[in-house]
């Protein structure tokens, strides 16, 4: 017989040897004591938690020459043969290899024969989740009412793959992962029995790395023994696992926390040189930060090795805020995921370090939005500040908002009545000019930036599957913002279809939705006909826009308006929006109203039939 792995050698041979899993052990022992052993058990739980071991112990308890007993003697021939795996009555089946219906039929044939040596026949079906559906179903009747003195133990790591009809016929036991303390306790027993010299820190590292699996833990210890003669220390285990020793890990994270980018990168490169596995390093960093996070939240202190507080020695690490820890974990998790396909395998970690040590290097808007990134916030704050200043200015001037909406009558110009609103607001005098100048520079800047991104608007519309909207938009020429911040779009008279289509709420809203993030605020769109705008109002911007987007539109002849005048274009609103335009037409048919308009000027807002008068606003 060759060398026996420690995890096979130290399989528990008595119930007392089993660490953890108390509920299972106690239930089984009591069942044995009272003679109430069920005919079928289902053991489920993660790898290395003792399923197969306890199944064998149960078999031993049943077949020990001392009769069914909770404390099998381990000396009688029955116990011995079970330990060695030669017992006739304990049949261990590999469910993953013998998974077909034929194997289960064989089993059913053999179940009928009485036990030969011990009191019970025990069938242990390991990895039972791999049986085929047919095989499971063939087993059902036998499992429900097996012959006397037959016990089935089904063991699996994936209980959800076992049909309910099988599970409901068994007593079910859940095996839990071991805690690190439990693992260390058992490891120490092994170490003592093997007369080895292993430090506590080394055992703890093994325990942490085994992640709850006893077999993992003992196999690691085994590996360490074959690796190292004499005393085994934490460093040896770390080397074996290819992990960075805690000290170096702290140093790296400390320099990231302290935003010392160069130092962090240099440390990282030293680790590359020493042959550390990048994925493992990434995971270790995440694991450490997780512990730090849990400690920050304050439940208990994880950060001790050999009772020594790490935090005191690494000030930057200690003062890391919760928010930043989370950000770093995010960055590192992404780096670990990227490693699978990124070509210099260290690159993701390096990028994580660079990004983790910079203030505002969040790469994409997604993370920026999620984390309330600095630049994003800064931008918003600036915008709000700007808006506040603008409002303040407006208030200082003391212009009632409503007045600006209404036409301003200029008595010095007798012909005002025949023209539309913009004539009035254009001549609005000093007051209007002041307001418009103050607002205009911001509007103009906004409009400029919108024009520079106009091509993207089309692209986004296409991506959003709003191709029709994009098509209608192609005929439109952005004219600027009016004083309410609405975007004015001019259409040639010949393209009425496009204008009307774009005005439909569905299309207009789609466009507004796309524009909002670009402009940085909710925005309304107003569509006009080109010739409704006085020639001199059409913006020179049109040319510049055409140069940028290459969109062909009818060239407006007039140009030369100043930026201030653009903002006066708001006068357009109302009158030229189709709905209100109708009202004007309505009024136009009414002679009394026409006369009134001639005398008072103004616009028709509402027409009341009973009086025959339009109430108008001044």
């Amino acid at each position, binding site marked *: 017989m060759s060398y026996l792995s420690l995890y096979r050698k130290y399989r528990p041979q008595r119930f007392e040897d089993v660490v953890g899993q108390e509920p299972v052990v106690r239930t089984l022992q009591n069942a044995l004591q009272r003679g109430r052993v069920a005919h079928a058990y289902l053991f489920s739980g993660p790898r290395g938690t003792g399923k197969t071991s306890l199944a064998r112990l149960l078999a031993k308890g049943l077949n020990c020459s001392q009769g069914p007993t909770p404390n099998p003697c381990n000396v009688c021939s029955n116990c011995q043969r079970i330990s060695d795996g030669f017992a006739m009555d304990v049949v261990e089946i590999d469910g993953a290899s013998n998974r077909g219906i034929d194997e289960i039929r064989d089993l059913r044939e053999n179940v009928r024969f009485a036990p030969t040596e011990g009191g019970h026949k025990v069938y242990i079906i390991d990895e039972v989740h791999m049986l085929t559906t047919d095989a499971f179903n063939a087993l059902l009747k036998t499992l429900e009412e097996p012959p006397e003195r037959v016990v089935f133990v089904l063991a699996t790591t994936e209980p959800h793959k076992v049909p309910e009809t099988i599970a409901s016929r068994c007593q079910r036991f859940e095996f839990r992962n071991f805690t690190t303390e439990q693992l260390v306790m058992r490891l120490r027993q092994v170490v003592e029995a093997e007369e080895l010299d292993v430090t506590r820190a080394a055992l703890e590292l093994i325990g942490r790395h085994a992640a709850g699996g006893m077999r993992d833990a003992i196999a690691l210890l085994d*590996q360490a023994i074959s690796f190292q003669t004499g005393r085994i220390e934490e460093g040896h285990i770390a080397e074996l696992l290819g992990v960075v020793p805690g000290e170096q890990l702290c140093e790296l994270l400390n320099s990231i926390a302290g935003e010392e980018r160069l130092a962090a*990168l240099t440390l990282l490169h030293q680790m590359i040189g020493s042959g550390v596995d990048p994925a493992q390093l990434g995971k270790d960093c995440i694991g450490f930060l997780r512990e730090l996070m849990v400690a920050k939240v304050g439940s208990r202190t994880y950060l001790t090795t050999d009772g020594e507080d790490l935090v005191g020695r690494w000030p930057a690490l200690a003062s890391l805020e919760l928010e930043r820890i989370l950000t770093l974990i995010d960055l590192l998790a992404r780096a670990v995921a990227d490693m699978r396909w990124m070509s210099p395998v260290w690159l993701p970690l390096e990028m994580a370090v660079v*990004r983790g040590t910079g203030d505002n290097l969040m790469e994409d808007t997604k993370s920026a939005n999620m984390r309330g990134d600095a630049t994003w916030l800064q931008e918003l704050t600036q915008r709000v500040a700007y808006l506040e200043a603008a409002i303040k200015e407006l208030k200082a001037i003391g212009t009632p908002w409503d007045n600006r909406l209404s036409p301003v009558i200029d008595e010095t110009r007798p012909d005002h009545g025949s023209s539309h609103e913009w004539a009035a607001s254009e001549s609005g005098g000093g007051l209007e000019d002041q307001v418009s100048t103050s607002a205009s520079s911001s509007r103009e800047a906004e409009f400029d930036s919108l024009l520079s991104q106009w091509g993207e608007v089309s692209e986004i519309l296409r991506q959003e599957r709003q191709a029709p909207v994009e098509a209608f938009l192609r005929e439109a020429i952005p004219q600027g913002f009016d004083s309410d911040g609405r975007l004015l779009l001019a259409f040639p008279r010949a393209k009425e279809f496009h204008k009307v289509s774009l005005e439909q709420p569905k299309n207009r809203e789609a466009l507004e939705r796309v524009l909002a993030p670009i402009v940085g605020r909710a925005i309304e769109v107003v569509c006009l006909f080109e010739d409704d705008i006085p020639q001199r109002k059409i913006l020179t911007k049109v040319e510049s826009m055409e140069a940028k987007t290459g969109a062909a539109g009818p060239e407006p002849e007039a140009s030369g308006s100043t930026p201030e005048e653009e903002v006066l274009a708001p006068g357009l609103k109302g009158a030229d929006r189709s709905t209100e335009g109708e009202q004007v037409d309505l009024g136009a048919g009414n002679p009394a109203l026409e006369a009134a308009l001639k005398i008072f000027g103004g616009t028709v807002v509402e027409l009341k039939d009973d009086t025959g008068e339009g109430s108008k606003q001044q």
Partner: protein
Amino acid sequence: MRGFDTLIGQGALVRRLQQAISSGRVAHAYLISGAPGSGKKTLAFTFAGALFCQNLDDNACGTCRNCRRIGANNHPDVTIVRPETGRIRISQIRQLKDKFALQSYEGSWKIGIIIDAETMTEAAANSLLKLLEEPSGKAVIMLLCTSRSMLLPTIVSRCQTIPMRRLAKSEIADFLANEHQLPPETAIVIAGLADGRLGQAIEIASQENLAWKDEVLAVMTRREGQGLAALRLAAKLDAEPEAIEFCLRVLSSWLRDMLLVTSGCSQTEVVHQDRYPDLLALSGALNESVVMRAIRQVESTRRALEANANRRLALDTLLYQMADLTSFSPASEVYKYGKSSRS
């Protein structure tokens, strides 16, 4: 087969295995993990040879009958399982188990070597479990895989894991300079591109690849007419698609160097050490976020090419953008990222 000495830079692993042999603590299952070209097969076969070798106790001599038979895949007690049509199937594992259920032919070890173990089907992997836990007699099963995370945890926990170490740049460079007569300054660049894998380094250390590298970097360092040069390179690459992978690797390593240099790293830490002055000059005009975005761009192009994108178009776009990073516009990228996060 020439024994463990052929494995450069894996001293610790080799010592561990040799110690296991000499102390009689050979485990029944080993999981050897490492990137392609990192020497997994060499290690596995040498280990098998060392167990059987008639001349040496803890190494393979390469000349005795057993060593030669193993080297020629001809030893009755060494079974090799490798994927057939891309997967390792349950029938193959069953065959292996049948073999392991019998005594060895020559009364010594029984060895199973499963190559590309991550390609095992779920059924195959599960059916291996019991054998892997408790094989009978003097048996060793070695599983070779790229990453242990690609295997079932139940398999991993039954094995002793042997992660192949990534070599330091200097180790690979020394090897290339000594064994392949490369000039040291070229060797160190190739070593940097090989990602710590000796096999990779040997594979990419060819004259054609060196020429490709120079061509890519010529475009990247050009001060004027970059756009046209980039498109010419794209056209050339389109005609020779097998070089694309390597060129993209050169490109991302170049961008990585740029990132390091902007962060203040020294000459020895970058891959393209021979062009450090260029790196310094170019990176002055850039900030980290542009470089990182460019790196992501290279990676997404790589994936697009794997997914059968229009090769010429993808290369044109990528190289054109990369040739002049100062005008690499982040705006449209931001929108793209924003969109993908929503969808």
